[in-house]
């Protein structure tokens, strides 16, 4: 557990006359980052996120207040020892250009005196674990894409198996598709490793997706709200947080938690190769086509089938929701389906039934009434605080 107690950082602006105005980067911050969880610090640029993070490994010294890790005041520890026990990942990875990927990853273990062979074999494991081809181990950073460099950055930070990780906008400099991949793999990795992570981002979507808890900071380094992602979306404490969390927060809040109860309709289906007559016997407008294992393949417009159902005539625009998935996924399945009937499958991907948007709304209302009962208690079950899409991926 990382604990901030009344931590303040003031900078004296350098000025020619010597006086110098003071500016407060972090203001009386008290915060706990629980062991084994991801605590996200989010806020607009200049609100003191980086300063907060760097005070943990003493790259910046607090003006006042204490920071402790597992009850030990960081100020009392040897600074090199402290830093080697904390993994640090930054925006542009900051890899050593003159060292190969493998030698980058072995840096901290080597500093800690691990012999070369052990350090290297462990590094190779990590390189694979963060999703890199082992052949890349011999490359130099300049030979990697931004996303790959970032993976190496994560592997390097994990190399000495530190209990604590500090991550400063690690995924901000890569394109959205790669970012999403990195985020998902990061969550998978964290579910295996259970590190105590302080994660900084300016992107509220990333904060809500990754955080077990999210701390929203406002400019001047003031903690505005500390809550689970679900509660942050459902109940922002003030206009600043509400504005920062964004417009479609009502819709996005549906990402958290599955429906309590679903009323699914049975959906008659056809297989690939079904004749036009067979299709029309099932339905006259849109008919769902499934594969051999019962997995939904796509919708067929009955009128468009000339001789038989081929993959070419399948409409693939509709998303598929999972029975254990989120209300957001359910609603999206209904809204994206050409027939208006959202396809719902079980965890193995087999069709269970369909649901219309109008039937998802009662499920949303039912859940809101359920959540309403706990509003104000401030506690939330971990499982429901996670976006449901990831819950299935983990």
């Amino acid at each position, binding site marked *: 557990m990382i604990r901030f107690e009344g931590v303040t950082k003031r900078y004296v602006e350098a000025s020619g006359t010597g006086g110098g105005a003071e500016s407060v980067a972090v203001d009386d911050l008290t915060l706990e980052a629980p062991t084994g969880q991801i605590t996200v610090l989010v806020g607009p640029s200049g609100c003191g996120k980086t300063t907060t993070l760097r005070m943990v490994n003493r790259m910046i010294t607090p003006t006042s207040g204490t920071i402790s890790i597992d009850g030990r005041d960081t100020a009392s520890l040897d600074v090199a020892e402290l830093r080697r026990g904390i993994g*640090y990942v930054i925006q542009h990875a900051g890899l050593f250009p003159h060292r190969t990927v493998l030698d980058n990853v072995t840096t901290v273990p080597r500093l800690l005196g691990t012999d070369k062979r052990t350090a290297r074999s462990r590094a190779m494991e990590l390189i694979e674990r963060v999703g890199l081809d082992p052949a890349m181990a011999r490359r130099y950073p300049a030979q990697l894409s931004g996303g790959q460099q970032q993976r190496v950055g994560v592997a390097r930070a994990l190399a000495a198996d530190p209990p604590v990780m500090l991550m400063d906008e690690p995924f901000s400099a890569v394109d959205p598709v790669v970012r999403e991949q990195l985020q998902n793999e990061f969550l998978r990795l964290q579910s295996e490793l259970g590190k105590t992570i302080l994660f900084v981002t300016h992107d509220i979507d990333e904060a809500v997706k990754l955080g077990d808890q999210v701390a929203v900071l406002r400019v001047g380094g003031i903690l505005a709200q500390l809550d689970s992602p679900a509660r942050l979306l459902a109940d922002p404490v003030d206009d600043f947080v509400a504005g920062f969390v964004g417009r479609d927060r009502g819709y996005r809040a549906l990402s958290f938690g599955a429906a309590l109860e679903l009323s699914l309709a049975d959906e008659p289906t056809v297989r690939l190769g079904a004749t036009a007559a067979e299709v029309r016997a099932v339905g006259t407008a849109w008919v769902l086509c499934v594969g051999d294992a019962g997995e939904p393949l796509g919708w067929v417009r009955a009128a468009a089938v000339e001789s038989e159902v081929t993959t070419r005539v399948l409409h693939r625009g509709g998303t598929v929701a999972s029975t254990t998935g989120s209300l957001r996924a359910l609603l999206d399945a209904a809204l994206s389906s050409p027939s208006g009937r959202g396809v719902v499958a079980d965890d193995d991907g087999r069709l269970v039934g369909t649901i219309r948007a109008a039937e998802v709304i009662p499920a949303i209302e039912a859940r809101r009434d359920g959540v309403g009962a706990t509003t104000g208690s401030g506690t939330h079950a971990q499982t429901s605080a996670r976006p449901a899409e990831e819950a299935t991926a983990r």
Partner: protein
Amino acid sequence: MTWALDHLGEIMSRAGQHAWLAGVPLVLGLLIALPLGWLAARQPRLRAVLLTSTGLLYTIPSLALFILLPPLLGTKILDPVNVIVAMTVYTVALLTRTVADGLSSVDGSTRQAAVAMGYGSFARFRAVDLPLAVPVIAAGLRVAAVSNVSIVSVASLIGISQLGYFLTDGYARSFPTEVWVGIVACLLLALVFDLVIQVVSRFLTPWTRAVAT
């Protein structure tokens, strides 16, 4: 040409002395410029002082330095040590700025990562900043090498043996061939220095040739 062949032994021995007088100061100068450059790169205030004062050293005329050094060092006027010391001064003058620039050229995020991994400032210098500064330092060394080779030839005016002798002697005897031999030999020597520095730098920086595939 035949003159050159006839005097090959003498040319080679003077070239050897020339290489010694220009090369040793190159190494000594680098060894002194490294800590000075390191200090300059660490301390913005020291930087201005160090770079200005070492820069000024380069403006002292070489002949003056060759003559002023013996009483300062307690050496004889014909002692080659005077030349070595003078050339070291020039090398330091040229290289301090280069070393400082090279060390501060390391990317901010790379330096930050090194600090966060628990590198102390000396360990970081040795393991990160210095290796990354090699290309910049090598470029500075090439300039210093050429400069040294050309300044050393002035030492023939005070009677110290090296390739410059052919220039003064050829001039005194109105014998252009000898002057040309001196010039070409100096050029070739400068080229050899340049080549050696490039090869060593290449050997130390395999990563600079690693490009995106």
